[in-house]
């Protein structure tokens, strides 16, 4: 029996994605919050976002450019990255729909007092609360599809201010807060982005954290030096045990290394090994600490292990070719990624296997 015959025995339905997306969201229109001065208008769009529940309040939004992670709960919304600019409306619509589903699935708090004055049925009838706003965005780098939605999504959100937090400054509460390495701010200024896209809180040390729990847990930002650039931040949600990597780990592409802005192949490998160091699997190297990659499906430490192996092997083989005196053209002709191109090559996109090998070569070649 030939392979084609067997392949034909798999029904079309089996070869397609089967379960309806967890939440398929379509932008509902122009954001009213975009009326804020300087905020770009976000047009209605038909692009769908796939929302994957990760654990606890953490979700992964796929389809908005690079993956966006979201902590959605009673405190509001915290995003890790904002996706591409043209998908900001779809990302916000997906968040809104997820909030609605959360509210639908929640039983109201039981009345434990004042039974003669309070009617418990009202808790069900009147229990709807408007979804809470986006309060924080963390950028894992300055890449276009990490920061592209900053302005529009920031404009839709709010920073609660008062007391010792600049309550007297008129615009301190305008929009959500944006956290990032300070190099992200430098890049956005260099590019001439609108002010509203700029990080409002930057850090320059090895790590940073939001000063208080958000949706029931801390939020750690850890600098990954010289990874895809000099501005990479890994985000860790310790209670949910979820790591968000940004672009140094992907399920669909080779790591996108920006040499011009401080990226390096060895920094990418160091970042991947750092994830393996802090992640703890649940059983037989799978599950446990979950990892939201820069692109592609939800992952765990075993998936990061495979990716670390691939990146390390390509790096070592290119290094060996350099040591043997091979030119970049000779290295490209040997195609050191050929064992992996079916998984990660993106020949129709803007980061091909040759782009990756070139970046590895340039990253390793001795300084002239």
């Amino acid at each position, binding site marked *: 029996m030939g392979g084609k015959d067997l392949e034909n025995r798999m029904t079309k339905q089996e070869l397609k994605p089967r379960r309806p997306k967890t939440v398929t969201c379509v932008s509902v229109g122009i954001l009213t919050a975009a009326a804020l001065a300087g905020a770009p208008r976000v047009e209605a769009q038909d692009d769908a976002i796939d929302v994957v529940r990760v654990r606890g309040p953490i979700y992964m939004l796929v389809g908005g450019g690079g993956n966006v992670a979201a902590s959605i709960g009673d405190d509001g919304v915290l995003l890790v990255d904002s996706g591409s600019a043209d998908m900001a409306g779809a990302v916000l619509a997906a968040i809104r729909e997820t909030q609605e589903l959360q509210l639908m699935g929640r039983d109201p708090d039981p009345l434990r007092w004042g039974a003669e004055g309070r009617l418990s049925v009202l808790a069900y009838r009147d229990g709807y609360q408007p979804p809470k706003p986006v309060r924080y965005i963390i950028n894992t780098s300055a890449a276009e599809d990490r920061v592209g939605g900053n302005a529009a999504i920031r404009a839709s959100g709010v920073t609660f201010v008062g007391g010792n937090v600049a309550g007297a400054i008129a615009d301190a509460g305008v929009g959500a807060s944006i956290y990032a390495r300070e190099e992200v701010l430098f890049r956005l200024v260099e590019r001439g982005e609108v002010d509203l896209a700029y990080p409002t809180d930057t850090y320059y040390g090895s790590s940073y954290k939001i000063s208080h729990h958000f949706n029931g847990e801390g939020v750690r930002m850890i600098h990954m030096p010289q990874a895809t650039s000099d501005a990479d931040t890994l985000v860790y949600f310790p209670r949910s045990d979820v790591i968000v990597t940004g672009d140094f780990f992907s399920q669909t592409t080779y790591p996108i290394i920006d040499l011009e802005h401080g990226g390096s192949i060895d920094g990418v490998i160091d970042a991947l090994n750092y994830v393996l160091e802090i992640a703890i699997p649940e059983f037989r190297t799978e599950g446990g600490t979950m990892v939201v990659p820069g692109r592609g499906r939800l992952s765990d430490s075993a998936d990061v292990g495979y990716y670390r*192996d691939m990146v390390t*092997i390509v790096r070592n*083989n290119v290094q060996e070719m350099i040591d043997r005196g091979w030119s970049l053209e000779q290295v490209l002709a040997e195609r050191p990624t050929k064992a992996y191109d079916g998984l990660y090559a993106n020949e129709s996109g803007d980061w091909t296997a040759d782009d990756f090998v070139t970046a590895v070569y340039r990253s390793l070649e001795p300084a002239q």
Partner: protein
Amino acid sequence: MRVKTVPIIVALVAAALAARPAAAQMDISGQWAPVMDEDRDERVSGPELGEFMGMPINDAARARAELWDSSIQSLAEWQCRPHGVDYITRGPSQPFITPEIDPASRNLIAYHFEWLRSVDRPIYMDGRPHPGPNEAHNWAGFSTGQWIGDVLRIHTTHLKEDYIRRNGLPRSDRAEVVEYLIRNEDVITWTTITYDPVYLEEPLIRTSEFQWRPNQQVPPYPCTVVTEVNREPGFVPHYFPGENPYAREAADVYNLPIEATRGGAETMYPEFKQRIQELIPGR
């Protein structure tokens, strides 16, 4: 007479159908042991390095296998990995299969396949849909089963990357697997078909047999990661392309031209015997 016979036949058929379980046509639960009359060397000790004969692999799989150094199994990230669903039937492990029954309807919710040194693998029989494309993958994948007469057909998605042979031949996480379990009295014939768009030229089809062993008990197998080799953190064992010193091992052991050992879809078919003859010098 004829008038009386028809109702009787109808009644007998109706009674027979009513006696059949609603979901399971053939019980496959219990303890099973592999029958290794064929391929014992491959299934226990493992194949020679560089021996890819009969495997419909493509150039990328061959390139990946030639980079492979078996020492990678000693890395912390590799030590406790179980065999994948489309390899474990070709290994030496014993499975036990338990049904999960809904207490209200007594319908079969799932079969659970558990193997020595592996993970629980539910086979959902209740019609639930497969997860979406961005959900996590795991070693056991996500499996649904349906009966085709007395044959259980299983379809598996959401697999982690794994291997199809214990000498470095990869199977990607984009693969899907279809299995057919056919029970004849005390023997299950287990057919596994792997469809891998990344590393296979054609589907990989393998069959294995398992014998009912009611006195068998598969023990637990907890696994703890240890430091097996002192190395620099982040070290990944592998070979340089084209310089794997064991690439010729199978060719030398079987006195074959190396081209005959490199696999590919053509090596699955009888016509390849003629090709081997052509590759032998002096013929």
